[in-house]
């Protein structure tokens, strides 16, 4: 599971898509706060120096400048690590969204796998923050392919968007379905339980699903690359079938995808959801991150294959109680 520098990850998918978009949209501008290489903007800077706005280590001003560019009719992509953008400059972003400005926010280095930089660089709250803002669309690509496709699709929206990226590059998911904003991907069909995953946790869930199937369970695996708005129909259909769900995200457990999905289930209980559902929610629970290798961090915080397998057993026990 350790990082391999030859693999293209979701940062590369963004960096390549933004170059393609800039070739066709002269109004596209990119703002970054001294992290252009890390955020894979090197090529964009080289090809479009007049449309790259260097903001230095000044994220609050960066968001304000982006707002001004949007007021003047540009479509700004505002790029930095998520702990700085949108977390440090949330007030400026809030004003921009209140003003219906078409800002494209990109937060890098989310989750635990951010090298050994420690908690100051591990955004674990950004989805909760972003999804609480009215009108925003939030995407969490799992890999290079999703990131490339979703970047392009987010650009076509006239409303504010958030793209959540990771430092760690994992091999792309093997899947031939089209990647469409707002539509989930059913990566495996099953009937005993459903695993919902976004971002890098998708690959972990793929591995866990294989192992669970090997011991005789039938697991439905759904990738939710678009966290807001959620693909409610697929979620509900699957849960009506399996009656048990596990949600996994590289984020604080009690918010983000977990709580958004829980709301869908609670709202539809007795309506479109026809039975009681057993649930387990996975994430980083009531604690900040820390330095360490990716494998060690995922293991300690219960975000590896083994942890999913344990949760699968737990959720199936719950399901049994509900149905007994």
């Amino acid at each position: 599971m350790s990082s391999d520098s030859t693999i293209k990850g979701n940062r590369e998918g963004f960096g390549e898509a933004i170059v393609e978009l800039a070739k066709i949209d002269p109004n596209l501008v990119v703002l970054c706060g001294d992290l252009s290489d890390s955020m894979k903007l090197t090529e964009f800077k080289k090809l479009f120096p007049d449309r790259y706005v260097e903001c230095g280590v000044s994220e609050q001003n960066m968001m304000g400048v982006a707002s001004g560019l949007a007021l003047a009719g540009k479509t700004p992509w505002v790029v930095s690590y998520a702990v700085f953008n949108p977390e440090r400059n949330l007030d400026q972003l809030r004003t921009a969204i209140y003003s219906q400005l078409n800002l494209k926010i990109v937060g890098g280095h989310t989750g635990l796998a951010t090298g050994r930089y420690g908690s100051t660089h591990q955004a674990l709250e950004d989805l909760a923050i972003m999804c609480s803002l009215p009108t925003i669309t939030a995407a969490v690509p799992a890999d290079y392919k999703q990131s490339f496709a979703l970047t392009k699709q987010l650009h076509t929206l006239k409303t504010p968007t958030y793209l959540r990226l990771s430092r760690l590059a994992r091999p792309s998911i093997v899947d031939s379905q089209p990647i469409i904003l707002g539509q989930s991907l059913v990566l495996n069909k099953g009937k005993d339980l459903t695993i919902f995953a976004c971002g890098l946790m998708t690959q972990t869930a793929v591995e866990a699903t294989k192992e669970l199937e090997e011991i005789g369970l039938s697991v439905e695996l759904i990738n939710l690359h678009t966290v807001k708005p959620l693909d409610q129909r697929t979620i509900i259909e699957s849960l009506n079938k399996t009656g048990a769900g596990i949600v996994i995200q590289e984020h604080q457990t009690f918010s983000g995808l977990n709580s958004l999905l829980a709301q869908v289930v609670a709202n539809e209980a007795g309506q479109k959801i026809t039975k009681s559902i057993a649930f387990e929610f996975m994430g980083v629970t009531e604690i900040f991150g820390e330095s360490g290798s990716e494998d060690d961090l995922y293991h300690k915080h219960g975000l590896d294959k083994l942890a999913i397998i344990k949760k699968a057993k737990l959720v199936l026990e719950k399901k049994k109680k509900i149905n007994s």
Partner: protein
Amino acid sequence: MPANINQQLNKIACKVRQDILRMTVLSGSGHIAGSFSITDVLVTLYFSKILRFDPKRPNWDKRDYFLLSNGHTCPALYAVLARSGFFDVAELDTYAQLGSRLQGHPHFAFGSKDNLPGLENTSGSLGQGISQAAGIAWAMKMDGKNNQVFCMMSDGEQQEGQVWEAYTFINYHHLDNFIGIIDCNNIQISGPIKKVMPLRDLKLKLMSFGFRVLEADAHDFADLEKKLTHAKENKSQATIILASSLAGKGVSFMENDSKWHSHIPSENEYSQAIKELQIKEKSDVK
């Protein structure tokens, strides 16, 4: 500036201050002191041909931009926009009422047809208008346009760190189409700035950031016109005008008293204030 123009601007400014009082009293909210201290600057910008605009075409692509960063002083901007012909003066009475286009702090919604004509930005959280102005200035340069971008800030607002990020950005990117005005009335909500959080030598600080810094009397129309024209006509450097003002300017018992930052006048205070302004409107006094 000929005396009759001076007198004409004085008349408008007196009307604007009466509008501000009326909005404040009708809604039971608003910030009189700061609104009064920026009134003469706004009147000069809009009524002595400093700003390029057309009230019939608020989105005219050749207009100069005016951004209010210290959003709590919006009653002054609303009144000046109405008196410039952007919308009916009667609409001022809806200020801060449910459903009004005149929000308690300015709200601009991009692309919406429900916006208040003439308004360019949302403000209220201090320190942001300057960055928004920098973004517009950058876009104008990028498109090879000569529109200029004016931004009004307050002196208390200079306590926000974002302002200093923006100053660095503006000068590094050489945005000489930017003209900032700082309303220096020396007070903020809790009292005198020098007691709450002093700014030290603002002029020296701004010069060291790379600005051309001009000083003006915020209540002397001739001086304001001279400094604003100088800033507008002499590009090559971004400019900031330090406009030395009196909080609550125009009504004797409101002047230079931080109590009036957001205090609402009683019925008697209101009549007294209106009376003073009506006398000034007819006189030749600034």
